[in-house]
């Protein structure tokens, strides 16, 4: 299979990765090669197999629905590039 430039641009947008034209072309070529390799998966018969969800055999990890200590607001905000009062500040969501 061959990825198109548009497909690569679409995936980059889904991933919110700003790529240069040169990067776009490089990843198009490299993903093509990698995907051609991983396509061998299709040769493995998995008709009788269910997919792995949790390799350690755990199903659900429950805890009591109780209040407990958590990260204080100030600590959570120490690394914030932009803050306003007790909030993370972001730019306009709608353009």
């Amino acid at each position, binding site marked *: 299979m061959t990825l198109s430039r548009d497909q690569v641009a679409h995936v980059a947008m889904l*991933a919110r990765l700003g790529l240069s034209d040169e990067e776009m072309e490089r990843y198009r070529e490299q993903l093509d090669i990698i995907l051609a390799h991983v396509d061998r998966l299709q040769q493995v018969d998995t008709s009788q*197999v269910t997919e792995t969800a949790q390799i350690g055999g755990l199903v659900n990890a429950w805890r009591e629905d109780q209040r407990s200590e958590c990260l204080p607001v100030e600590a959570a905000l120490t*690394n914030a590039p932009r803050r306003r009062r007790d909030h993370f500040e972001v*730019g306009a969501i709608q353009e």
Partner: protein
Amino acid sequence: MSEAAAGVPTVADLGSALRRGAATPQALAATARARLEGISELNVVLRYTGELAERQAARAARTLAESPETAGPLCGVPFAYKDVLCAEGVETTAGSRILQGFVPPYTGTALGRLLDAGAVPVAVTNCDEFAMGSSNENSAYGPVGNPWDPSRVPGGSSGGSAAVVAAGAVPFSLGTDTGGSIRQPAALCGVAGFKPTYGRVSRYGLIAFASSLDQIGPFARRVEDVAHVFTAIAGHDPQDSTSSPLPVEPVEEQLSRGVEGMRLGIPREYLVEGMEPGVREAIEAAFAELEKLGASLEEVSLPTTEAGLSTYYIIAPAECSANLARMDGVRFGLHVDRPALTDTYLQTRGRGFGPEVKRRIMLGTYALSSGYYDAYYRKAQKVRTLIAEEFDRAFEKVDALVCPTSPTVAFPRGAKSDPLSMYLCDVLTLPVNLAGLPGISIPCGLSEGLPVGLQVIGPRFQDARVLRVAHAYERATRWHAEMPPARPAAGAPS
């Protein structure tokens, strides 16, 4: 040169010196730091822990003075940890520009348990960006050199953590292993490196790469030291919902039982074509040694091994693309200011991530995108089941598996420039992550003057058995005592 001649101590040596009063935690931390500074040309250390080291050394000194009976084997012993583990107040960047300046507001469980055991973290080690790589050439802060030959790679992604132990600067370190990132650098640097069973060590406070595969584990010069560190960090943690509630088997009881009467399997598919002759020779000699020690060796087959690489390179990138979505320039890390939020995301991530991380995010996003999910991600998770079941069946016949860790010795920097040939470095280690098994690499020879690693793999939660086999081999051989020719110049032997 041997390590004894080089004056390189083990955890056990330092522990006994500390308890005798022949050394202090502060002095050992200072020596470790001097030794690390002496190998600065290897670019192994990203930063020193400063105040945290001082505080911990003082705490250990108090314990040793006031209640020596409570001081465990790690109390006062210096170590280094990979730049993906969070310690409160110490910058942690995952080897990435996007997290430059990030100072975690809390300490992760594995590190926290080592602090509780009195161990003294002195340095944060270089690694591949977000633990993605097999050569430590993907760090935003420059590549790491192998102490055996600085022009060669130390392996990856925990290359710095392997190199600091190999160079004798610290007696142990912590790394993480998602597809071989502890075992492969351990092999290439000639030290012991252990990836515990998935879920055995809490991942709380570990910057996530691929959550269903990631596991924290130790590097050390002795299997016994690996066991001490494992014992300190293993066990259930309510903060990590994938951490296993099963009790941890006591390791020390089993460690010295030897391999007499054990059945060991050699997976036929792991003696791959691309294996270097010197690696094959060393591995075959190791097999013979294990037989001499009373184990019976037999060939087993894991036929789906060949699909392992493809399975891994769908699942790991898919999970990383989701995990790394949090690197968005809003709550921490790099922030490229733009009026519209979408542009902030695009520019922050476009500038903050390096080429390999972008490649894997692209691959993973593609594999999870609408219309491709079934063909790639779901398919890969089914093949993963087959790979795990094949291991389980093999373990009905044998107690553990033995094989090479890496098909090659350490290669020159820049030798694997295309992504696929780099991915092939992990072909013998990543099936173990897919199946959630414990695996260790220990030194078993030299080829062209460079270390070769023997991998021991066990059934899930039989971590102690894996360490027992490794320990038996180590006691019968001297490969673990080999030191790299280029040793740290600074720092007097303790």
